[in-house]
């Protein structure tokens, strides 16, 4: 869709969207959204095989993306709009009454690009596995992409899904875990350690890759490696290190911006650090 060199520019515009969306309604989750902007931009503008103009809920014949950590809806909505699923101007309705851009993503209001409701954590990997199994039954060679938070891995259902996917050789699915090591109450280490992620997934029989989700060289090296492992009999996970709040210096290195909107001055400073792009604000 765009040349690879454009991705950081698009992602910068996505970051501006995120900040302006949460600021406008003084609510929402900027921290994780900023951290995942580079990866989601890369997926939607480079790696996923999808047709924003012909969106179908079932996703037959297209790659399917499931965002399990639904609270980072701002980055999801911005990337969907910027890649053509709906008008960019609709981003201004985020979290407002009668909007299709609900606080957490849902199919309920018919927003193109969303295929399942998420927000209550730990459910997306199971749903994505269902999509992946259906594609196998239908001999559909498309890929199912999943994004999950790292704090979310504390949910037991995730490990049910991890076991199930390996047992059933769900090898048409690439999961990325947003490994920013932050959650609402503090760092994951303080709240509930999720140590040795790589060993855990290896022990469950998955293919495990590691990536810096805020570094395009790393993304362009590791995502193709993950794609090369498709069809190999194992589900694939990328442990994607990111920085919560990436791109705005005072939002980085802390969990404080997990679910807090910037005030007027903070927004102005954040936008100063992320200059407007040729794509333009909504």
């Amino acid at each position: 869709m765009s040349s690879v060199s454009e991705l950081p520019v698009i992602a910068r515009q996505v970051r501006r969207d995120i900040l302006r969306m949460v600021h406008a309604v003084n609510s929402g989750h900027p921290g994780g959204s900023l951290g995942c902007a580079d990866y989601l931009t890369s997926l939607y503008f480079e790696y996923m095989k999808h047709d924003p103009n012909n969106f179908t809920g079932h996703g037959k014949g297209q790659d399917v993306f499931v965002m399990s950590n639904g609270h980072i809806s701002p980055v999801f909505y911005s990337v969907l709009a910027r890649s053509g699923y709906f008008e960019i101007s609709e981003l201004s309705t985020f979290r407002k009454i009668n909007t299709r851009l609900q606080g957490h993503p849902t199919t309920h209001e018919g927003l193109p690009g969303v295929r399942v409701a998420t927000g209550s954590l730990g459910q997306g990997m199971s749903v994505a596995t269902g999509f992946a199994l259906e594609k196998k039954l239908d001999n559909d060679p498309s890929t199912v992409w999943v994004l999950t938070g790292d704090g979310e891995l504390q949910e037991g259902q995730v490990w049910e899904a991890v076991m199930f996917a390996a047992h059933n050789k769900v090898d048409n699915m690439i999961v990325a875990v947003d490994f920013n090591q932050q959650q609402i109450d503090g760092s994951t280490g303080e709240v509930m350690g999720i140590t040795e992620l790589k060993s855990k997934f290896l022990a469950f029989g998955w293919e495990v890759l590691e990536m810096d989700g805020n570094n395009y060289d790393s993304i362009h090296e590791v995502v193709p490696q993950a794609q090369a492992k498709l069809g190999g009999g194992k589900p694939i996970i990328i442990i994607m290190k990111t920085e919560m709040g990436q791109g705005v210096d005072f939002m980085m290195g802390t969990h404080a911006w997990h679910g807090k909107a910037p005030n007027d001055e903070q927004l102005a400073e954040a936008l100063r650090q992320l200059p407007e792009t040729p794509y333009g604000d909504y």
Partner: protein
Amino acid sequence: MKSFEVTGKKDTRSGFGAGLLELGKNNADVVAMCADLTGSLTMHHFEKEFPNRFFQAGIAEANMMGVAAGMALAGKIPFTGTFANFSTGRVYDQIRQSIAYSGANVKICASHAGLTLGEDGATHQILEDIGLMKMLPGMTVINPCDYNQTKQATIAIAEHKGPVYLRFGRPKWPVFIPEDAQFEIGKALMLSPGTDVSIFATGHMVWKAIEAGIELEKMGISAEVINIHTIKPLDEKAIIESVSKTGCAVSAEEHQMNGGLGDSIAQVLGKNLPSPLEMVAVKDSFGESGTPDELLVKYGLDTPNIIEAAKKAIARKSN
């Protein structure tokens, strides 16, 4: 009272298994998942015939509901199978978000519902499942009364677009619904017309209601017995029509009084036609171990309880 030909005794779960097998043959989109209870749900027939469309979930019901949601959203018609307790209470949020709110076309099929699973006791005897499921927007809730009706309902729900909760049980129970009967979701089934009291029953309690109707007739009381197999959407018209004629009602179900069929009927009557209503249901209590018959007697869900309720409802009519 009309007389009913009982063709034998069979468990309703086997009706589900037979219906699922038939669906497998006739509808390529039907897939099935089970959480380590394939034999108990009689899903082994489907598994054997259609191994590629059967998915063993293991003892992991939350994931089963999520995977089923994904397959449904992707275009298949998944039937999940486990006990009623593990089909509802254990996985309520998965059903709420991934299935109901997401509009996923999943058929949640639940066996061993109510007290009549017997000896396993209260941990497995969920009496709250109808209430849990009927509260979810867009969820259809069905509790058929015998083997044939369960088979017919299983086949019918595949044609219905949207999530369904299908509830059935373990004990062998009289089979009296004709093999070739038509099952219409949301349509109350008139079993025997009467004039003095309307008895609305669901699930295993339908047969108890028929027995009560026969006894009441001997006492000179004409009971109208209606099978409410679909608790949601409820056939409000049939309920109002019947009570307009009889002036009072009894509900009978193998479920808590709170949140069950009687509760739904009370809503209909309260809004449209305030009338005496007696509810035969479990009264804010857990179950326990015992045989199905012992349990129905101890918890007030037996034929004499329906008879007493009918007399009480009639006595409460203003005259």
